[in-house]
């Protein structure tokens, strides 16, 4: 967490055009959520090498949605510019009853001291009826997140 605090400081200080490594992390009573990727140089750098992992702590949720890994193809929306970080991850269950997981993280360099959460996450989980879930399940879970952009040397 101390390293993340340093990264949070760096995002406050880094020039907006700088390329670097983007990281986000949330760890509270509901979720463990981590995301990372490389932001290319320039005013609107492309995000490459993206990967994220989500673990929901509530028992009884569908296992395939409660623990999910995301890759670049799951990064539907992304905006990392001018001190803002906005990421949206989306996945659907590939077979069986309908199920989806939608994760939004938004953070800003404004208004948060270094090391403190500088944004929020929202996890929207939906699953149709399945074995052990006769009525399906829907959850919207929100909490604080810390995102940082470490400038490339």
């Amino acid at each position, binding site marked *: 967490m101390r390293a993340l605090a340093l990264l949070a400081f760096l995002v406050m200080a880094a020039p907006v055009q700088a390329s670097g490594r983007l990281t986000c992390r949330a760890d509270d009573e509901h979720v463990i959520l981590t995301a990372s990727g490389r932001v290319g140089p320039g*005013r*609107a750098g*492309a*995000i490459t090498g993206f990967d994220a992992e989500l673990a929901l702590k509530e028992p009884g949720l569908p296992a395939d949605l409660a623990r999910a890994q995301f890759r670049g193809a799951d*990064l539907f*929306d992304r905006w*990392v510019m001018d001190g803002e970080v906005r990421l949206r991850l989306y996945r659907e269950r590939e077979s069986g009853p309908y199920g*989806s997981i939608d994760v939004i993280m938004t953070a800003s360099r404004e208004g948060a001291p270094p090391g403190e959460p500088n944004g929020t996450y929202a996890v929207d989980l939906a699953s149709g009826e399945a074995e052990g879930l006769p009525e399906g399940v829907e959850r919207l879970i929100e909490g604080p997140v810390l995102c940082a952009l470490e400038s490339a040397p």
Partner: protein
Amino acid sequence: MTARPALLAALLVLHAGPAAATANLDCGIDDRAVRFELSGLMGRSGSGAILSFRSELRLVGRGTPRGPTRVVFSQEDVVQRWIVGGRIDIALRRAWSRNGRKGTVTVILRTAVDEEELEAPGTYELIVTQEAPRGGKPPSRTIRGKAGCSLG
């Protein structure tokens, strides 16, 4: 006027609606320096790609940066986007070359649905960068103006 409620409805659907929802995305710039169009079909499910993507930039008139006069963007040139909860922000970048010179052109659109008007007005930023001849800092020029998008 019927498109305006459709725009708001589509934005809400994309944010919280069923997985198969789709909507037509259109963005444009039309001022003394820049003509720009972007169109495509947005869906929540699938690959997240903007289907039937078409986009073209034309630099017209005085005061435009030296470099390309026409750029056709492809889906792969969408380097960033945020089409969530009433915001339509899109950034495109593509390399250009003309008369032995080359560089990159970047278009950044930032728009938001106006709940009074049910439209998505906003701004654009156009950055034309030219490759430095001997490895120095690449010269670039930026112009800004008004842009608009719709999703319905």
